[in-house]
């Protein structure tokens, strides 16, 4: 156990890709946490998907031993957090377990949307913030300009920022010194009853359910009988340890310390993050404030391409949810796509990541429907419910109101792209809340319907700003909206997987866009095929696929037989991948492609 005065707990926060994980690498290295041989780049990003995409998804905690300039030994608990907005929940949890934050800003990029969002959270958590100007080794780095920006936009004194490079190692020692001298030590009473925050829990193939804890008062040790105050469940602590960054057993954890425990918890959902852990024999009176649970905001249907993979998909979802309690799933049936699951996610990237992991780690081939949001439905009979799937929308006459989620979005962009950004926000029903400038960067704050954002907002924003804008959002409130369900009909039969809920004003253009896209995706049949978009019984857009006229090999002689056979095999393979829709054969990837609306 280390005295609180010699402990510093801090999070590393930044906009995506500004170098948090790489700075963590250097800090681990300087403090001797890993040998040269064990070190890899972004060593804390240990999930395959993190390594492949070069991003952090899961926050990671590391304990470092550091001997400061004052000659004293300190224990530093570092938490590397994800930068992407979808995983903002990981950031807020990490912040509540620490007293300080290293705010990393890429000196070649400057302050971005998530920089700000993270700063606000850190201020709210009453953190001491130490700004770090990273990547000063880059020729494009402008540390002075970015320093000024930090002062202007964020309001932190420019002189406090530490110039550094996670690549060359410059400034790393200054960072460590600043952590020790500028950040507050934790407080806590070692004699008081055990009060510890359950910061995170996950499943480890070797160690079982792991629980990350931060002790406020008292101490936690092996053999102790603990109680989870939220669920009331009791467990015996089997193992106590810290990440150095390898899991390393310790005897106990005292006030201000962070580490993991294994306590015979069966599933991750039994170890609810934000819960308070206390001692069964001598409980504390008040639980810690905890955090609001993360709720899925984006939903989509996931269907196996091969219908035989349905049970495989169920198993895979169950396994993944052991590790990630932030997504939800329930069985769904689609006439077009067969049996699958309606799944809820924290955002679009989260959705992509889970889908990727399902495909790769479980060897599945999946189709996903277009992402949609959760609508609050109030019916004329006074009942109400949450609608997760456009296909389930009740008859219009029975609906009193539909409410949709709105977000508060912060967009930062070089001012030359401000015009198109504002146009985009207006097109997407945005309401401007604020518009400010810092140097040649503009910051626009908008209220936007989430449904517009999950449609193709990111892609559009990226394309109108050539990738120079950054975007962050927080869920705001539900508001009634003029929303309608657009159905897509193929020769008169609705294709449930393609139906969508949109604002009345956008219905026609979206419906048309899908029909036009489908026209290129559905192969010609032996007869004419009508593609229609409709609201209720009213057709709002229509395209026609004329009948197949010609599919024959003009010339075929003795030497062409093996080649022709292969072509035929391919054609037959293709036919197998078709889903019969009424009399129309539609290749599965047509659904998939049509659903990837993008900026089409």
């Amino acid at each position, binding site marked *: 156990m280390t005295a609180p005065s010699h402990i510093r707990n801090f999070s590393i926060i930044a906009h995506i890709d500004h170098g948090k994980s790489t700075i963590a690498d250097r800090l681990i290295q300087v403090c001797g946490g890993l040998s040269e041989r064990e070190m890899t780049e972004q060593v804390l990003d240990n999930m395959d998907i993190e390594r492949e995409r070069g991003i952090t998804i899961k926050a990671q905690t590391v304990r470092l031993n550091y001997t400061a300039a004052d000659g004293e030994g300190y224990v530093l608990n570092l938490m590397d957090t994800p930068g992407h907005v979808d995983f903002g929940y990981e950031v807020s949890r990490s912040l509540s377990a620490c007293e300080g934050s290293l705010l990393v800003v890429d000196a070649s990029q400057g302050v971005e949307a998530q920089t700000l969002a993270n700063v606000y959270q850190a201020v709210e958590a009453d953190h001491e913030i130490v700004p770090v100007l990273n990547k000063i080794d880059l020729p494009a780095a402008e540390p002075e300009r970015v320093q000024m920006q930090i002062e202007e936009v964020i309001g932190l004194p420019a002189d406090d920022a530490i110039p550094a490079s996670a690549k060359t190692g410059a400034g790393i020692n200054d960072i460590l010194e600043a952590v020790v001298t500028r950040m507050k030590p934790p407080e806590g009473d070692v004699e008081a009853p055990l009060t510890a925050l359950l910061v995170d829990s996950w499943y480890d193939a070797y160690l079982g359910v792991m629980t990350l804890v931060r002790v406020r008062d008292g101490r936690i040790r092996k053999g102790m009988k603990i109680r989870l105050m939220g669920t009331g469940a009791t467990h015996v602590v089997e193992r106590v340890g810290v990440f150095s960054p390898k899991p390393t057993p310790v005897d106990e954890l005292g006030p201000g310390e962070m580490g993991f425990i294994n306590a015979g918890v069966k599933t991750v959902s039994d170890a609810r993050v934000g819960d308070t852990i206390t001692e069964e024999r001598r409980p504390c009176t008040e639980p810690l404030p905890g955090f609001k649970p993360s709720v899925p905001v984006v939903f989509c249907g996931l269907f196996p391409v091969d219908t035989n993979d349905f049970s495989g998909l169920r198993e895979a979802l169950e396994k993944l949810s052991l590790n990630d309690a932030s997504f939800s799933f329930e069985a769904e049936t689609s006439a077009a796509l067969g049996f699958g699951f309606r799944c809820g996610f924290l955002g679009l990237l989260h959705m992509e990541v889970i889908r990727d992991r399902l495909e790769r780690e479980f060897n599945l081939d999946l189709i996903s429907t277009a992402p949609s949001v959760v609508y609050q439905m109030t019916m004329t009979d006074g009942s109400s419910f949450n609608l997760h799937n456009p296909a389930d929308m009740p008859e219009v006459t029975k609906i009193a109101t539909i409410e949709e989620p709105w977000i508060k979005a912060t967009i930062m962009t070089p001012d030359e792209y401000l015009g198109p950004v504002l146009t985009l926000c207006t097109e997407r029903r945005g309401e401007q809340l604020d518009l400010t400038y810092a140097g040649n960067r503009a910051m626009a704050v908008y209220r936007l319907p989430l449904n517009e954002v999950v449609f193709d907002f990111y892609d559009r924003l990226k394309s109108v700003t050539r990738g120079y804008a950054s975007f962050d959002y927080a869920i705001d409130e539900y508001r009634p909206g003029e929303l309608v369900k657009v159905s897509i009909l193929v020769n008169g039969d609705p294709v449930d997987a393609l139906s969508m809920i949109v604002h009345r004003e956008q219905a026609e253009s979206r419906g048309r866009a899908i029909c036009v896209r489908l026209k290129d995706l559905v192969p010609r049949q*032996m007869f004419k095929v009508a593609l229609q978009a409709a609201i209720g019984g009213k057709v709002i857009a229509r395209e026609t696929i*004329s009948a*197949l*006229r*010609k*599919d*024959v*090999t*003009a*010339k*075929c*002689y*003795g*030497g062409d*037989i*093996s080649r*022709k*056979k292969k*072509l*035929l095999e391919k*054609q*037959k*393979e293709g*036919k*197998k991948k078709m889903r019969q829709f009424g009399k129309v054969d539609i290749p599965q990837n047509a659904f998939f492609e049509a659903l990837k609306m993008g900026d089409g």
Partner: protein
Amino acid sequence: MSKAAETPLALYIHWPFCRAKCPYCDFNSHVSQDVDHARFAAAYRREMAHMATHYGAGRKLVSIFFGGGTPSLMPPSLVAGLIDEAERLFGLSDDVEITAEANPTSSEAAMFEGFRAAGVNRISLGVQSLRDAGLAFLGREHSAGEARSAIMAARQHFARISIDLIYARRDQTCAGWVSELREALDLGLTHMSLYQLTIERGTVFHSRARRGERLVPPDDLAAEMYEMTNDIMTGAGLPAYEISNHAATGEACRHNLVYWRAQDWIGIGPGAHGRLTVPAGRLGLATRRSPAAWLESVEDAGHAIDIVTEDGRADSIAESLMMGLRLAEGVSIPALEARYASRAAHLDETALDRLVESGLVEIGGVQLRVTPAGRLLLDWILADLLPG
């Protein structure tokens, strides 16, 4: 073995050289200045001998076909020598058909007499178009006038003449094609191969098309041209006996019928294919494609066979349907079953019912046929019909 002995046997001889490479052509053809004719002559003889010993089994040939490439560039003495050798090794049936493909230029027309003397009794001229603009688009070396003269010259030596035309070319209109076709009919020939231009992989046209150039008309227009062509040809007494081949009664190319009826043939020369009925099904043979490699292999081993495949009964039946349904006569199902002693499910019955109902396929007595309406959709029909 009696069954194989009943099946007709044909011989294909591939000459892989051309004066220039046409931009649409994916045949095994090469442009070479110095072809060592003596070496090639010896190699053709050796490979023919090898094939006769191993696969001929004392069967007479019903047909010999010199294809290419441009076989009209072969020295007539070589053609004569190979026909003699074939007669010696296999024997020729009384009404043997001996065809040579020829390009319609003046220099080749000069060879016709020699070819006739060598024993060739049928000539297939690659006219491709009777319009200079069409020929230029196809990158051909001859003019329409030259082609007409070549046909005239051929008339003096051959009773059986066929021409190839390529239509559904870029910018071609229905009316334009109809008048070109009528002019061709005015030539009074008894056989015509009318191919819609196909963009084949690995050709100059293919890379141009991939870069976005439009080289063929839209499918709907091409389909219309095809149907018009069939109407006109039927009216003129040369109905389609195969998807793209038209002939007066009794004038069909017997050699190509061997392919479409899935009978037996032996191929010699670079990249030549052969297929033979064996007790288990069908044997496939293919020789090395590159002329130089073929030459070396033959000189080395007496043959250049580098691919041997053996199809079982199911695949053999599939071949019979795939090729046979190209023919207007269709395929006799009982004969097919008897030939391969198999009653295995070779057709998807529900697909067949559906196709018959929609009028694309018909069953007349024991013959299964694709209707004129189904011809343009044959590939689609086959993928539906053959069990996966």
